[in-house]
């Protein structure tokens, strides 16, 4: 069963179309990257998934059920623009936000105790948020997002503003939460964060989906016959067996971009190995960034 099924969802504000008949399926326990340039419609789509706004047409299914109010408590949302009540004490704030999600006082306290112990936040609970450092506030914000144990966690540009230490911590927690059964949606325009974490992606541009699928699958689809090669000796391509696309000599080693012709990769290695030492031979895998730019150009 999918965690979320978005079916033909459209939304427009006045004459401005922000989402144009979008359909996406987000598998359970996936880490799903919602990608696209700024202004593509990511935030609008997230607002529809979280129930903040209603679509003009189309439906959103939550675990196969029509999205309804009872699902609100199962979603945790970390908005791109972070915010907490600055003058409110950390402990009171976490309890308040958890209770708004429908937790009882007892549950809220229990869940808070777990995260407070995990992130060593005991000393902060009685302090107002504004007295904490930025890094501490980020942790509080993250805990506020997941304190009610949501089964769907939506993180909008989660790594912006996090220092490297907190970013790593966040990454580990995300993987941990997924292992415990949660589905995670990432919204970002920064591809490098997607590369490591996302199992599935959808790319939005100008209110439409331009690319969608499992990351592995998408990459292999875009796989070309190109290889990177580093050798000790200069080599010459002949255009039939292989073609040299690019040649560069760095610190006594030769770096090549090759396109294979008649030869397979193993045949090429065998052929070259007799004349030169091969330091590196690798298939050129497209990065998410390549896929993204290519998709945008189409």
């Amino acid at each position, binding site marked *: 069963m999918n965690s979320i099924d978005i079916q033909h969802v459209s939304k427009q504000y006045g004459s401005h179309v922000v989402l144009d008949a979008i359909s996406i399926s987000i598998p359970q326990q996936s880490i799903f990257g919602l990608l696209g340039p700024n202004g593509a419609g990511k935030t609008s789509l997230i607002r529809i998934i979280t129930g903040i706004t209603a679509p003009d047409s189309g439906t959103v299914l939550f675990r196969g059920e029509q999205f309804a109010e009872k699902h609100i408590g199962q979603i945790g*949302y970390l908005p791109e623009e972070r915010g907490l009540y600055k003058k409110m004490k950390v402990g009171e704030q976490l309890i308040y936000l958890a209770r708004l999600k429908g937790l009882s006082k007892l549950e809220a306290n229990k869940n808070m105790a777990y995260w407070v112990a995990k992130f060593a936040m005991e000393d902060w609970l009685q302090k107002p948020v504004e007295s904490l450092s930025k890094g501490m506030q980020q942790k509080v914000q993250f805990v506020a997002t997941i304190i009610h144990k949501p089964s769907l966690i939506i993180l909008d540009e989660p790594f912006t503003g996090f220092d490297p230490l907190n970013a790593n911590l966040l990454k580990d927690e995300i993987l941990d939460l997924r292992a415990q059964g949660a589905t995670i949606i990432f919204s970002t325009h920064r591809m490098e964060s997607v590369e490591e974490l996302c199992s599935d992606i959808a790319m939005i541009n100008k209110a439409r989906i331009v690319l969608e699928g499992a990351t592995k699958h998408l990459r292999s689809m875009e796989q070309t016959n190109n290889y990177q090669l580093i050798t000790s000796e200069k080599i010459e391509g002949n255009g039939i067996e292989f073609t040299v696309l690019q040649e560069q000599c760095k610190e006594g080693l030769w770096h090549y971009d090759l396109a294979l012709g008649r030869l397979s990769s193993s045949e090429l290695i065998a052929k070259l190995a007799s004349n030169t030492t091969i330091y590196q031979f690798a298939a050129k895998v497209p990065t998410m960034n390549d896929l993204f730019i290519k998709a945008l150009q189409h």
Partner: protein
Amino acid sequence: MVSLQKIFLIARREFLEKVRKRSFIVMTLLGPVFFAVLMIVPIWITGLNPGGEKRIAVVDDNTQLIFHMPESEMVEFLYLHTGIEAAKKLVKAGDYDGLLYIPEQDIDNPARITFFAEGNMSMSLQHDLEGKLNAEFEKLKLERAGIDPKLLENIKTKISVSTVNLTSEGGEEQKNNSASAGAGLGSAVLIYLFIFMYGIQVMRGVIEEKTNRIVEVIITSVKPVELMVGKISGIACVALTQFSLWILLSFAITSAVSTKFQVDRFADENLKETLSKTKSDQLEQALEMNKIVSAIDSLNIPFLIGVFAFYFLGGYLLYAALFAAIGSAVDNETDTQQFMLPVTVPLVLAFIFAQTIIRSPDGSLAFWLSIIPFTSPIIMMVRLPFGVHWYELALSMFVLVGTIALFSWLAARIYRIGILMYGKKPSFKEIGKWMSY
């Protein structure tokens, strides 16, 4: 469906946050002190002998006219025949508190009367001396005209007309117009201040949540309308708490004060006895106090407080919804001005008209402004102490409640879009469009 539990959670947070603030505690304590000061000062002054008795030297150059400055608790007059320069030296030496110099006078053109003192002359002393001199001149003129001053004293008459309302129930009700005017204007000022104070708190709160971006987190848990209603009702509870504390503390302070200054002795039933004990020059003040005390007694205080609570709450709810809508539409407080204007104009107008309506509380202007919901909370309170037909009151309340419902609904429609809009300041036209989304 709106979740009452979530509204309660939001209201509770709002309430606790506000009442824990130092400014709330200070305001709550200072309010009644301020009211009490307003009450105490006049009472206090009546029993006050400012600065003790003054010894005043009088140098009178007149040979034709004889002045007998009457003495009182406040001043003692000592006539010197040393000449003005010698007398001045005595004042400087500290033998006297002051020197009243009356050069030779023409009875029809009194002039150049001078008071010498080391410090400044107090207002009350100047007032006292002028009054006494006036009386002396008048007396001399009467004598010159051959009229016995005692005869004139008997002719002097003082009439005060008491107002009695013929109530519809057939009874009669004693009214005191100045008390009604005071009570009416006082509660109008309070309502005006309360609506502004707490309405703007709602607006600030909305803007704060929006600029903090906490609103994005909150509205994944609650509906915008729940957030708005929770916030408005939380602050309403703050206002009611403050209001109740004010009333309690004011009662405590004023009853303590009345006991201390024995205000009861000025009540109608005790007045005769009090007057017999009062010195002649404080008679006027004692009568004045009696007026104030019986005026306060003539008002139906519990009824006024009840209706006040209704209009205060009603006016607040109506305007708070509008202020919340304004807060949601902008990103910061400086952008609010354009939208504040149409909202505050009726309030300010009502306040200005209140002064006119005090003079004719049953006119048609008074009637209509006390029905129109944007001005009724203030204007009805102005009219109420003078007596208002129950059906006018009922109509006014009914219209107010209906308008609150309508405008809260409209405000919620603006609010739910506004809190998610960032960046450019919207126009009135755009806000109009939001209502239809």
